[in-house]
């Protein structure tokens, strides 16, 4: 997902305190910032929320790539609003992570020097305008699958950030699907572009949910703590079941010859993505990893004088005001 393969941190806390904490979670209570929590819970959350925040921020790059080249002024303003929302999502999530005792700058630095990850999906390039359709439809669609249940997560600030984000996410997916509709119903060349975008984004979108449950050793503790609400395979299945009819409506073909409806389980059977590709992208070897991190580092470095200048200005004003009093 936006947070993939987040390892649950081990916890060495007083078993009695742990039991009381678990009982609160089981009772559906929310945990708030200054309350006692296991060290593992706190650390796992920092990693997960941080990774989610980084994904929102880095996720602006593949779409930002098309803002200046949108086909109409209306599409440009829509895409601009969508990308601006993603910046907002990043900020809501950084705020939530900060309540756990890590600073915004620390989180940013951990992204920039590679200590923290962001979702594998944003390491794929956006080659044509149809990719703006595919990203909104599939990538935001997959994100919604994960974020809706996370509104019920046990950590109060994370849950509230998710509620805000979910309110804005539906616009993202619908504008993407709308682009796909236009392209799929357009000229043969446009329809071909739409099909090509689906072909390239299908498997990377399935990878967003993380490795298969049988290889996902980190889930149990996080699910017990209600940091993770569903298993990777559950969410992936839900996503496929929802998306296949949408592709059919567009008259496009999901690039999976094995795909078929399974009456018995009431869902589609589908091919797993190439997991070796996934692990390779996570390791830093995807098509755009270097470019993405370079862009974030450049923005951070180029912005340093602005951050410092505004701070110096604010301090000067404060001193002048004090002197006048």
């Amino acid at each position: 997902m936006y947070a993939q393969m987040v390892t649950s941190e081990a916890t060495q806390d007083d078993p009695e305190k742990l039991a009381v904490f678990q009982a609160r979670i089981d009772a559906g209570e929310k945990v708030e910032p200054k309350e006692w929590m296991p060290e593992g819970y706190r650390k796992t959350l920092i990693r997960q929320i941080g990774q989610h925040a980084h994904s929102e921020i880095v996720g602006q790059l593949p779409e930002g790539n098309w803002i200046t080249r949108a086909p109409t002024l209306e599409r440009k303003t829509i895409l601009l609003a969508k990308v601006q929302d993603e910046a907002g999502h990043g900020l809501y999530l950084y705020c939530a992570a900060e309540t756990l005792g890590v600073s915004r700058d620390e989180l940013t630095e951990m992204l920039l020097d590679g200590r923290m990850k962001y979702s594998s999906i944003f390491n794929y390039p956006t080659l044509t305008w149809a990719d703006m359709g595919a990203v909104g439809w599939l990538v935001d669609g997959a994100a919604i699958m994960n974020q809706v249940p996370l509104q019920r997560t046990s950590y109060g600030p994370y849950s509230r950030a998710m509620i805000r984000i979910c309110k804005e996410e539906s616009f993202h997916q619908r504008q993407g699907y709308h682009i796909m509709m236009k392209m799929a119903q357009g000229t043969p060349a446009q329809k071909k572009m739409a099909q090509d975008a689906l072909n390239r984004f299908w498997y990377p979108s399935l990878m967003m949910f993380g490795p298969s449950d049988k290889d996902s050793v980190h889930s149990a503790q996080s699910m017990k703590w209600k940091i993770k609400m569903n298993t990777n395979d559950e969410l992936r299945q839900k996503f496929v079941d929802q998306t296949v009819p949408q592709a059919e409506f567009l008259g496009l073909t999901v690039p999976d010859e094995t795909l078929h409806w399974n009456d018995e389980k009431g869902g589609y059977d589908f091919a797993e993505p190439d997991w070796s590709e996934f692990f390779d992208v996570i390791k830093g070897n995807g098509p755009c990893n270097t470019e993405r991190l370079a862009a974030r580092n450049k923005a951070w470095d180029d912005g340093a004088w602005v951050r410092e200048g505004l701070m110096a200005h604010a301090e000067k004003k404060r001193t002048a005001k004090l002197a006048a009093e």
Partner: protein
Amino acid sequence: MKHEWPLWEVFIRGQHGLNHRHVGSLHAPDAEMALKIARDVYTRRNEGVSIWVVEAAHITASSPSGKGPLYEPSESKVYRHPTFFDIPDEAGHM
């Protein structure tokens, strides 16, 4: 120079007549910028008619471990609730 922008808490009045409500936080060098950023981050869809920002360092919060001593005394004062008093229906609407 290494000097992180301070943290601000943001409160928004959603509609006329309602209280301001805490919506989240942000980083800004000063109050003026905090208001501008709050506008962009928290009211992109007409979520508010008024914004307050306050530097997080200026907020004094009750401590979570003090929950008991702080709130328990009110638990025993059930007579503070109207339902404590049985008034016969014959007395009419009250």
